[in-house]
């Protein structure tokens, strides 16, 4: 079962930093170490130039004006800045925010905070695939609504929301549209202006940059959007995010964006082919279910439930060699199964049985071969051990069993 090579299929958690990105960053640690806000000497000018170039690459990737890119420490901070910043800035207009139950915790917890501050938040249900109900969204918008926050692509299932339709509704109703696009930017074409997105959060480390730098796109024109800073200080980033710029990090993020734009189309095609093979081979195993949408999703992700097998246990059969994620409770700090999968209507048992496999730039066909083989063996091992698999095979109606909850 053991081979020496470690295989990484958890690229939705973080991606490895591309060596070309590291290369681009290195001079900014020792040579061009200046503070980008030092306007009066060459050290500052060099740093500022590095930041400007990076900002332009990021703006090019999403086809916006570079002045609309506000650097942050990551997508979590960008989500917080957008939600809390809009709530504060537009308090005169209203106090209602609409989001989805399947959003990332960075959005959900920022919304919870807004509720504590006197705001009102509607958490919309999703359908079986995880898709927003556009009619329910439109109906939820009131004259107090200031913001709709809906993620571009889901981190667990890869499902892509109908962004253009949501953008149209928001434009028609005159509310701001914010999107956490962390899982989409750099992997598929994302154009907030075309889609009617006014604020958009994403981060470098999900697109082969490194951890600790992200950004918030904030529309400057039609409409001109402003957010109240959540970090006070020197007034950097057009006053929306104070703090000395992380110059090497930003340079790396910029290079990652430049590479993503260049290689996106080819890479998405390569990954989706590998993902499809991985998925179809694993789905040949008995009682394996796909979570999310096959038609509307990211090219590199699949989320599968292996019935009557517990996800963390399954991962332990191969996690010496292969890194993946599970929606099982045992893998979460809260000991609750994935709230995203629960929101899709999965029973707790299927949520406990899920694996998320997310491919990336450095995966090869050999990785996929090994994953198919080792996950298949793992499922077999776990089912040989599983009393409920045995009962299922004997035709016992598991729903009729009186379980002793604990």
């Amino acid at each position: 079962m053991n081979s020496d090579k470690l295989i990484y299929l958890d690229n939705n958690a973080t991606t490895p930093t591309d060596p070309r990105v590291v290369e681009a960053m290195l001079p900014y640690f020792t040579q061009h170490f200046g503070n980008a806000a030092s306007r009066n000497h060459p050290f500052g000018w060099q740093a500022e130039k590095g930041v400007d170039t990076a900002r332009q690459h990021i703006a090019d990737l999403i086809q916006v004006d570079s002045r609309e890119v506000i650097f942050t420490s990551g997508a979590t901070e960008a989500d917080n800045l957008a939600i809390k910043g809009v709530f504060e800035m537009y308090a005169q207009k209203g106090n209602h925010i609409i989001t989805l139950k399947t959003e990332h915790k960075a959005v959900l917890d920022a919304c919870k905070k807004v509720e504590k501050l006197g705001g009102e938040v509607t958490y919309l249900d999703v359908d079986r695939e995880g898709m927003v109900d556009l009619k329910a969204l439109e109906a939820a918008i009131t004259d107090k609504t200031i913001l709709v926050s809906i993620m571009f692509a889901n981190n667990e299932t890869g499902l892509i929301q109908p962004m253009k339709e949501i953008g149209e509704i928001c434009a028609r109703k005159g509310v701001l549209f914010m999107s956490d696009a962390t899982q989409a930017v750099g992997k598929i074409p994302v154009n907030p202006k075309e889609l009617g997105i006014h604020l958009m959060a994403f981060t470098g480390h999900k697109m082969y940059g490194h951890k600790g730098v992200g950004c918030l796109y904030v529309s400057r024109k039609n409409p001109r959007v402003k957010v109240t800073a959540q970090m006070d200080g020197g007034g950097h980033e057009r006053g929306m995010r104070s703090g000395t710029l992380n110059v090497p990090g930003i340079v790396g993020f910029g290079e990652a964006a430049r590479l993503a734009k260049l290689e996106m189309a080819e890479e998405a095609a390569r990954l989706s082919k590998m993902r499809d093979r991985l998925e179809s081979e694993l789905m040949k195993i008995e009682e394996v279910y796909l979570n999310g949408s096959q038609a509307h999703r990211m090219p590199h992700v699949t989320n599968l439930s292996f019935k009557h097998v517990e996800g963390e246990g399954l991962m332990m059969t191969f996690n010496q060699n292969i890194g993946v994620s599970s929606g099982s409770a045992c893998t979460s700090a809260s000991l609750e199964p994935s709230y995203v999968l629960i929101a899709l209507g999965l029973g707790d048992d299927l949520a406990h049985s899920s694996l998320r496999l997310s491919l990336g730039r450095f995966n090869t066909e050999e990785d996929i071969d090994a994953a198919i083989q080792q996950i298949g063996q793992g499922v077999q091992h776990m089912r040989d051990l599983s009393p409920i698999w045995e009962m299922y095979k004997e035709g016992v109606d598991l729903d009729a069993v009186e379980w002793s909850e604990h």
Partner: protein
Amino acid sequence: MAYSEKLLDHFKKPKNVGTLDKDSKAVGTGLVGAPECGDVMRLQIEVDEESNVIKDAKFKTFGCGSAIASSSLATEWLKGKTVDEALAIDNMAIVEELALPPVKIHCSVLAEDAIKSAIADYRKKNGIAEEA
């Protein structure tokens, strides 16, 4: 989270996996946990009527690595013990033996419950009153 060697060994090469005849009078079956909770243990003992000694023990577990290892270890410990000795097995002994991390202590509790439940089933079948 890194697990102990003992735990990994019980997980990868579990002892006493299988099924005993649940209809036999000598066999007690405990089924504890629930699929929605992410773990179900079925633990069975076969008791020698004369000596009251557990001759055989088998398990099957749906759950995480710690749950599987806890039940595998429990079956090892049960074999050769009298029913009364088996009742004295404490979940904290399992925690210590496998070096379970705090978030996994419930797995050992479940194993203790499974032992008690199997013994109760055996006693019920054989008309033996539960000890006070």
